[in-house]
């Protein structure tokens, strides 16, 4: 089932295209890694796909009403914002808002979704903690849990593992690939090529606003493409847990 389709999506800042005629589809069961250098247009692509940026072309999500879109896709913005000193559980519960009719309070289904999201991110013991008093990485996990509580078929996450410790990076990527195995889909932008190779079923490589490569991790993370797009040489070794990729030098 196709959960997102972009057709010739283009975003311009003045004359300069930041996202340049990108077409792609995301299907249920996929964990898609969005990779590319800083300024490649990853964030803009995600935001435009959701209708948060003016664009030309077409996005299946942006054409939905705000309420329909909120039940079709959850978004985890790059900037981690928690404006008020609210309890972790209260924040995660906000993820249920798109499913609650006006004036109603969360029911059993909502509470189950909140519990599940907290559990997946290892936040069971954090329910009553004040989110703004947690560390940056812990706040990041709270916000991921909020997006999971939305229980949408599709999750778009913009650099969700930046600033997390290694264990939490792996755990978070496992949560995402787990969602894909359950039949949902995740599009996650990230800079760790090794984690992308091991946890994503498909990679999309962007460079200067254009989609340069789209396919299985082995087909995208080639020495040639890495040299051409990132300007790096890369060391690669296969391990029992999947491929290990390490950028070695700037070309």
């Amino acid at each position: 089932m196709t959960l997102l389709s972009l057709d010739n999506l283009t975003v311009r800042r003045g004359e300069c295209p930041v996202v340049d005629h990108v077409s792609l589809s995301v299907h249920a069961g996929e964990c898609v890694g969005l990779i590319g250098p800083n300024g490649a247009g990853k964030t803009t692509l995600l935001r435009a796909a959701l209708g948060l940026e003016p664009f030309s072309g077409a996005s299946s999500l942006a054409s939905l009403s705000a309420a329909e879109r909120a039940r079709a896709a959850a978004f985890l913005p790059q900037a981690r914002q928690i404006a008020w000193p609210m309890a972790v559980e209260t924040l995660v519960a906000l993820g249920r808002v798109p499913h609650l009719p006006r004036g109603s309070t969360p029911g059993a289904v909502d509470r189950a979704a909140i519990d599940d999201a907290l559990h997946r991110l290892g936040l069971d013991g954090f329910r009553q903690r004040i989110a703004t008093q947690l560390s940056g990485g812990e706040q990041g996990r709270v916000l991921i849990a909020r997006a999971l509580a939305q229980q949408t078929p599709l999750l778009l996450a913009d650099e969700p593992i930046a600033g997390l410790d290694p264990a939490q990076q792996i755990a978070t990527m496992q949560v995402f690939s787990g969602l894909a195995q359950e039949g949902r889909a995740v599009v996650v932008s990230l800079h760790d090529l090794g984690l992308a190779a091991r946890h994503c079923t498909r990679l999309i490589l962007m460079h200067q606003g254009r989609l340069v490569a789209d396919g299985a991790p082995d087909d995208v993370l080639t020495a040639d493409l890495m040299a051409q797009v990132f300007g790096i040489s890369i060391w690669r070794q296969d391990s029992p847990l999947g491929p290990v990729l390490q950028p070695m030098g700037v070309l």
Partner: protein
Amino acid sequence: MLLRIWLLTTLVILFALSVLTGPAGLTLVDTVRALFLGQGEAATLVMREIRLPRAILGVMVGASLGLSGAAMQGYLRNPLAEPGLIGVSGSAALGAVIVLQTGLAAAWWLALPMAALGGALAAVMLILLLAGPRGSSLTLILAGIAISALAGAMTTLVLNLSPNPFAASEVVFWMMGSLSDRSFDHVWIALPFMIIGWVLLLSLGRPLDVLTLGEDAAATMGVETRRVRMVMVLGIAACVGAATAVAGAIGFVGLVVPHVLRPFVGARPSALLWASALGGAAMVLAADLAVRLILPDRDLKLGVLMAIIGAPFFLHLIYKTRGELR
């Protein structure tokens, strides 16, 4: 729930005290008889025409200002935000000052409130024009600061060109903000606008909760951010415009009340709306009681007292949050 009961109880007690307090020297029995049974002509007049509208206006003005402050802080995600910040109070005051100075206020009793409402609405329109359909919170604040500065400059110009010192002093006194010498006429003229404002602002609870996560996250959680901004600005214009029209400029209620009550509602912006409306009403009633008790003979202005309490509080808030302000 407990907080609401506590606030309501405080409000009822303060309302009763407000009705019982005044220079007429009526006993408790006199006031109750006059208020409910209409016994005693002079006492009935004092109670029904002076004290009762004053107390009711205190509740209305306080609720409007407290609610506006809570909505504004929730929307801008900034504990320093205040309705005056987006220039609505300043523009409402400018409208009022113009009719006071031109003598229109004396010629037609509706002119003063109508001009204040007009000023508030003009500020709102200008804000929407400047902040644009996709304007961020920062754009809104900056537009508000510019409009406040413009309204302040125009008010000063009107005072500067004042034909005589008496007219100027009348304006200056009015701008200090007060609930004394108000009648039910003031209640009826402000109430419809305030009710519209209350309904609009109280409808924003859930969107304001979600906006805790930022505008991008909120927009992808079903919140129509443009509609929320429109409802908020119109609601604040109705509340603050009507409040300024009948009571002059009373500042800081919208700053102090939400800040004090936030910890009691788990910092949830939706819960803070109701709490701040009740808390604002209680605070204005308490302050209006205080101006009558501290200097009964000198007509101490409510707005002056609020500023004396509020400004140091504002400094304290800036000092506390200075590390987070960038």
